[in-house]
Each structure stands twice: as C-alpha cells, then as structure tokens.
C-alpha cells in the first residue's frame, strides 16, 4: 500500500501530520506498538527535518505485510557533510526552529537507531533523500 504526503518547509503547524496518519494506519493493521513507535519516531524526525531545514518535500510510505519503506525527498540546501550531520549534538537549526522545540542535533542519529536499514544521500544546493526501512517481524 502506497501513501504520499507533501511537506512545506517552515510550516510547523502541520509538521507531524504525515507521521500521525501513518501511525493510525499501522495501528489499524495491528503492527506491534514497539514497532509502530520506531516507525513514527523516525518518520516524525525526518518530516520535521524537511520543515526545519528544506523548502519542500515529498514523503512516500510503502507498507507491505513484512514492513514499511519510507522515502523522504526534499528540495533544499542539502547537507555538505553527512558524517557531521549524523553526529549527536550537531545542528545548524535556526533560532525559529529552536523556538519550535527542535535543534538538539539528535534527529538523524535517532532515525538511524530506529531503522533496520537507513540511507541518506544529499546534493548541496539541490536537496536530500532519506530511505528508512523497518521490518514488522
């Protein structure tokens, strides 16, 4: 099953909507609560990153019997040094983003911890693409 969501950069009132929808779907499919939490925490962090750091993006969620694959692709500044961005505590979040409760530099490392398979590719000046896979069993 495929679901798609469009994300607007800077729109913190709607950030988390896609993650909330996916949570409802997974609960209805009786996926175990621990797995649901791993999926939605990873997705929410990735969704907020688009809102906080990029101009706009698209989330595609592909749910099967065995797991979920999330692809988040954005148009934005990209990430010059992915190794640095993956370091706990590293953040370039603006003051506005910090006022919204983000900018700990914990999002990307936490996405990786929650995922069974995680990939990030980015091109400076173009955008960033994340792929997050989590198995249900």
């Amino acid at each position, binding site marked *: 099953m495929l679901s798609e969501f469009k994300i607007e950069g800077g729109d913190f009132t709607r950030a988390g909507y896609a993650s909330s929808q996916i949570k409802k779907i997974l609960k209805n499919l009786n996926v175990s609560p621990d797995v649901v*939490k791993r999926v939605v925490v990873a997705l*929410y*962090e990735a969704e907020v990153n688009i809102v906080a750091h990029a101009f706009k993006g698209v989330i595609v969620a592909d749910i099967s019997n065995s797991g979920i694959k999330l692809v988040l692709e954005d148009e934005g500044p990209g990430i010059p040094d992915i190794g640095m961005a993956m370091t706990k505590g590293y953040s370039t979040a603006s003051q506005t983003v910090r006022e919204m409760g983000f900018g*700990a530099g*914990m999002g990307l490392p936490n996405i990786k*911890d929650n995922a069974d398979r995680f990939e990030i590719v980015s091109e400076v000046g173009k955008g960033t693409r994340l792929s997050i896979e989590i198995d249900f069993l």
Partner: protein
Amino acid sequence: MIIRELCEMVSGRIVCGESRREESVEYAFASDLMSDVLTVRNGNFLMITGLANIQSVRTAEMSDVPFMLLCRNKKATEQMIEVAQENKLLIVESPYSMFRCVGILYNAGLKPLF
C-alpha cells in the same frame, strides 16, 4: 504517583483528559527539546516541558506518552488540546518553573528514566 496528587503539588490544572486524573505515573522526563524526548524508547512516563506548541503534543503522540506537564505558566493552545484529545493525552498546566516542578516531583518520588 496519582495525577490528581501531582497536580496539587505543582498547583496544576488539568486542561485535557480530566477523567483520567486517578491514573498514576512512575517515571518522568523533562526537556524543552523534542528530539531529546524522542530518543526515549519506552513511552510510559510524564513528559515535563515548557514548550507550548503543537510539536510538543505531536512528540507525545509519536512517543506514546500518556501525560504531559506544561510548566512556566505556559498555556495549551486550542490546536494542542484538539490533537491531545485525539490521542488520549492528559495535559496539566503549572505556573511553576521547570526546575521547581521537577524538584517537587522528584522529592515526592517520581523517578528519572536514567
């Protein structure tokens, strides 16, 4: 610790989920940074924060957190209460600072997660 008693200790007021005031909670975690909260694996704790916007409620939703204490006299917005109700999240507002809330509740036996 029973939520009703917790409210008395921090001069708190339940603004959402009042019917669950006799439920109890054993652990708490305090932060204004949502990504800190999101690193906590287990969800059964009281989230203490001064962040009164929709993202604190979304964070509780994703984390399966059942109770939130809004300190520093922050008020839950209408949008927060709406999403909180959908997710069966109880919200308490307290006029006290985070330090004061945390000190009182720690002394009264609420446990840290780590």
